[in-house]
């Protein structure tokens, strides 16, 4: 007579189960270990360099001494400008897709397909697109039309434009998700009171989707801040005497600075501590942005 709740599984099946759990656990620990190990390595090797003056001083002696101030500032300018350019376009696209387009229409499906494809394009391709389209075509075109030479070279502006295109899918997907989270009943209540579609969007839908739009923007900024390949040819520079005075000037960038330190320095070995410290700053920036996005998103979900 068997007790009512003993397992009917054979011993071999139970062993197999334990084995599977063991593998999953090992993999998890390994992933965690790699990340923590990496961070610890950065902290130990770059930590001592990470001082206030490192953040606030210009690099000296062919980037072999001094700080990263212009790169930090340049990265900030870049992501701000990128956000200003990309988020309104992305938000407008998401509004069109969720609020106006017929979901099964040929056009809406094409736009979605384009957005998904855009998300999968390697960033170096965006870099080439930036040179080809923004610098050569738009910039040179503007210069020819106006008879000056302001736009026809790589610059902060074209880098921001390139990154805006690159981060567009992130913004669109996040904002679409936020708009869809606004209950249909709220829209209907507004329309039933005589609001037009547009009034409903500005007065009811968007105010309820603000945190989602913010999340999208932050995710985009996080993605854009760490991107190097896409701006490689579009306007970054390895050394700058001062911060850019206009968006049409070249600028320094954290990710590119790291690349320069690691590959183009007269003495790569000597700059290692600087590289580690720069990495910490870059990672810190990206983590900070991602965590704030996660925080905002969880607040959005709770409502």
């Amino acid at each position, binding site marked *: 007579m068997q007790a009512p709740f003993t397992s009917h599984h054979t011993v071999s099946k139970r062993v197999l189960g334990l084995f599977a759990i063991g593998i999953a656990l090992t993999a998890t620990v390994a992933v965690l270990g790699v990340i923590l190990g990496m961070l610890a390595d950065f902290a130990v090797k770059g930590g001592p360099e990470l001082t206030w003056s490192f953040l606030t001083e210009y690099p000296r002696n062919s980037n072999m001494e001094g700080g990263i101030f212009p790169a930090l500032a340049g990265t900030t300018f870049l992501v701000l400008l990128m956000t200003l350019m990309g988020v309104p376009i992305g938000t407008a696209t998401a509004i069109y897709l969720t609020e106006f387009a*017929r*979901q*099964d229409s040929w056009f809406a499906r094409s736009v979605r397909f384009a957005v998904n494809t855009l998300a999968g394009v390697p960033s170096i391709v965006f870099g080439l697109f930036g040179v080809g389209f923004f610098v050569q075509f738009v910039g040179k075109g503007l210069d020819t039309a106006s008879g000056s030479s302001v736009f026809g070279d790589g610059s902060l502006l074209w880098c921001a434009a390139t990154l805006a295109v690159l981060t567009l899918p992130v913004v669109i997907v996040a904002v679409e998700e936020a708009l869809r989270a606004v*209950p249909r*009943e*709220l*829209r*209907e*209540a*507004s*329309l*039933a*009171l*005589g*609001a*037009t579609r547009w*009034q409903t969007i500005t*007065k*009811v839908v968007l*105010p*309820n989707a603000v945190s989602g739009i913010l999340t999208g923007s932050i995710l985009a900024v996080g993605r854009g801040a760490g991107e190097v390949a896409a701006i490689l040819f579009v306007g970054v520079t390895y050394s700058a005497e001062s911060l850019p005075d206009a968006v049409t000037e070249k600028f320094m960038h954290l990710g590119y600075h790291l690349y320069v330190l690691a590959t183009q320095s007269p003495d790569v070995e000597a700059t290692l501590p600087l590289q580690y410290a720069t990495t910490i700053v870059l990672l810190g920036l990206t983590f900070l942005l991602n965590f704030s996005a996660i925080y905002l998103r969880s607040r959005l979900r709770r409502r």
Partner: protein
Amino acid sequence: MAKEYPTKITATDFSMYYGQKQALHNISITVPERRVTAFIGPSGCGKSTFLRSMNRMNDLIDGTRHEGGMVIDDVDVYDPTVDVSTLRRKIGMVFQKSVPFPKSIFENITYGLTLLDRRSKSDLEQVVEESLQRAALWNEVKDRLHHSALGLSGGQQQRLCIARAVAVNPEILLMDEPCSALDPISTGKVEELITELKDTYTIVLVTHNMQQAARVSDYTGFFLMGHLIEFDRTRTLFTSPAKKETEDYITGRFG
């Protein structure tokens, strides 16, 4: 039918399609002015679809189309020259789920008014008080008009939605199962309110609760599978229905 009262809404051979699927079949009906007209029938019978055809809320769903006439006060609501926003201002709507905007009570009531033009503060305050009085909610909320409407109970929220609809001064109130999410006490209050409001508004009420239809309505229409089976004075329909389907439904033999 319904000849004792002036007609407010007339549907003539009205049909509605969701893509290929026909949801309403040649509905003809006259809804009397300043009375309560109830639509009953099992889920999916088309009663809500018909209600939402009156203020063209079905326009919002991709792939719907209609045939036949839906005339309110001599105007075909589907006429191309009709401005849908203006139409909907004339026809208030209360939904199954009470959906206050995540704004203050005051802003909820004034939402419809501020869509058109700016009003003075005293003007708005007056409308807010009147509307809330009308929805029998004023005494409960007058001290917290500027608090969030989401802090109200379910029954209060539904009465707020009625006040919000009333605030734009409509002529018709469409109510789509307004009590189905409410407890019996709140339901009683809303029903009482419907009886009071019918002096001012033409009310069309969709309900799955036959007792409710019997309690508050003057006329009742019975829908089944997209057809209007029978439409008559409520007392007549419930006591001596003309059609076998109606009798089966109200005696609980199906649905």
